[in-house]
């Protein structure tokens, strides 16, 4: 690190974690972890509960001492500093608003602690930013969950922290309000340009809001990248299952042909572009081929001849179908694996596609991805919430 001036611009690294880890007795909450969060970004730590994401956040805030490693904020080592000396602020999971102070004093708390006397204008502006200007003299318990959440954000943001840490800030809100607040938080982040580090177990929330998502599992970062990259090219079965739904098919590697890897799963030949495979495919060994449900097209077995060449195809029988409005979700039993899931948009519905029908599933090989077959196919399936 060169002497980076603490500019709040869009360049440079705001948070740098070096070999940071946390152990409680014999339990390792966070394995040694390196992470660099660029300034001005909206960064999400995503994972199921107990994966170490909150501990990581709390180590950045100084609420938890790391067992090993260091925390750097804007190029300055803050590992040994107590929370009140770090240029970060936190939005707590249950907001932790001071119940004895009104909204105005809650928001002014940080400014007053730093000895700033004239807080009126700043507090007013901040309350306007979160659209709570009329609630200044209310007590926290007189506000709804969504309003309390906005107060918590205002109380943290008013201090212009180097980094704003958000610990499951939307967890206590109902679904509709959560969606609304996601957009709201994104708007605020864009407006103030401060680095946000957001901890969540909701993969949809992470993907909606963050520029960069780090998927954590068992105290380790499984994969880090832009939401679309993580979704389209997961590198582990955990990421493939935790972010959305994936069909993972075990296949034998037959060899290569040009840029493609040739595979066989239960007498069905499949191809996978070598660039879509994140592991080395050796002939004679196994590989997992993954395909998202919405990338698969269903065709009734009678029309199999109409399927264009160059697509992977497997046969199966519809076990179940459920109509959910924008799409119909099918569960299909196939020789390559039971319970494959397929989402079809409801554009031209083929009435023959009912449970019991013989079908062909086909997809563009470029839409699938290859994974190391040594991993558990089930990893991350129970951990995610919903689809």
């Amino acid at each position, binding site marked *: 690190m060169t002497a980076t001036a603490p500019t709040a611009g869009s360049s440079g690294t705001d948070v740098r974690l070096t070999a940071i880890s946390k152990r409680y007795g014999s339990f390792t909450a966070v394995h040694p972890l390196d992470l660099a969060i660029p300034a001005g970004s909206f960064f999400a730590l995503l994972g199921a509960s107990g994966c170490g994401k909150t501990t990581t956040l709390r180590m950045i*805030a*100084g*609420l938890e001492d790391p067992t090993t490693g260091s925390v750097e904020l804007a190029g300055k080592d803050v590992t040994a500093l*107590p*929370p*009140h*000396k770090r240029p*970060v*602020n*936190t939005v*707590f999971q*249950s907001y*932790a*608003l*001071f*119940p*004895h102070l009104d909204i105005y004093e809650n928001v002014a*708390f*940080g400014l007053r*602690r*730093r000895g700033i006397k004239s807080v009126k204008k700043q507090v007013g502006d901040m309350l306007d930013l979160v659209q709570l200007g009329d609630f200044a003299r209310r007590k926290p318990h007189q506000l709804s969950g969504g309003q309390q959440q906005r107060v918590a954000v205002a*109380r*943290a943001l008013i*201090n212009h922290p180097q980094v704003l840490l958000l610990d499951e800030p939307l967890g206590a809100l109902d679904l509709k309000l959560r969606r609304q607040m996601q957009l709201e938080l994104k708007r605020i982040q864009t407006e103030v340009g401060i680095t946000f580090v957001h901890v969540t177990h909701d993969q949809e929330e992470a993907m909606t809001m963050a520029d960069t998502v780090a998927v954590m599992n068992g105290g380790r970062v499984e994969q880090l990248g832009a939401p679309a990259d993580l979704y389209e090219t997961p590198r582990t079965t955990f990421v493939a299952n935790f972010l959305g739904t994936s069909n993972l098919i075990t296949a034998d590697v037959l060899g290569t042909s040009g840029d493609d890897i040739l595979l066989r799963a239960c007498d069905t030949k499949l191809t996978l572009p070598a660039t879509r495979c994140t592991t080395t495919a050796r002939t004679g060994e196994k590989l997992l081929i993954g395909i998202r449900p919405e990338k698969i097209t269903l065709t009734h077995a009678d029309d199999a001849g109409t399927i264009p060449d160059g697509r992977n195809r497997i046969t199966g029988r519809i076990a179940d179908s459920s109509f959910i409005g924008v799409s119909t979700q099918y569960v299909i039993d196939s020789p390559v694996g039971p319970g494959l899931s397929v989402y079809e948009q409801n554009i031209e519905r083929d009435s023959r596609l009912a449970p019991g029908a013989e079908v062909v599933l086909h997809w563009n090989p470029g839409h699938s991805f290859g994974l190391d077959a040594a991993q558990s196919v089930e990893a991350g399936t129970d951990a995610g919430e919903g689809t």
Partner: protein
Amino acid sequence: MTTTATTSADTGTEAPAVTAAARRKKLVPYWLLLPGILWLVVFFAAPLVYQASTSVQTGSLEEGFKVTWHFATYADALTEYYPQFLRSVAYSATATVLCLALGYPLAYLIAFKAGRWRNLLMVLVIAPFFTSFLIRTLAWKTILSDGGPVVSALGSLHILDVTNALGVTEGHRVLATPLAVVCGLTYNFLPFMILPLYTSLERIDPRLHEAAGDLYATPLTTFRKVTFPLSMPGVVAGTLLTFIPATGDYINAELLGSTDQKMIGNVIQSQFLRVLDYPTAAALSFILMAAILAMVTLYIRKSGTEDLV
């Protein structure tokens, strides 16, 4: 009431039945209150009225007492025993402050730092209640006895010189001095301070401490601006639970003090049981009650805790 599909002919007969049931339902809370109210009437309201009438009677034990609306008893009682009134308030206020000073750090420790020792420590706080109030106070008499280890230690550490200078002890003894009485009061009422303090501290979300630290408050500022204000209901409850009974207490002054440390409780007790001047004793009781009510009302108004609960 949900089955409203009745014909107009039926409604005439059914409506009263429904309202009767509803009325019975409305009465349930009053029935539930009844035992408590009866208890209060028999053991609180009735004695209070009886006491009030006693306080305005004149007469003697031999000739019997009669209600003569003799309010002068109040004025006489007050002029004669105002030193004991003032002493009671002073002793009990001092004991309350000492209880707060001793109890707050302890309650804080138990609530936030004790971890798995929390329950054990709470049991230890309550443990003195397993012995009677009287026996515990008598034990203090032994502890503070003249020439005993405590007094000699205080003497050789020159602490007695300091307390002598302050006028709370005299010469080489602790027993039969204001210090002994205040110590006894403090000891006996300490759990009444600790319990409400602990309850209100324990209710404080530890994340509020983290939030305050996160918002640049030092640990001391966190205590001043967050913890202490939030524990105010406990402080108010604790001081009231200590101050009110301590003001009327007579056991501590009786066992640990001399005639110079008599509190108003001792006067009332001796008027009732020894002098047998019931009107004066009753009047003193009413004055004490009124004085405590007035002080407590003022205190609650000033501390403004209704905002916190």
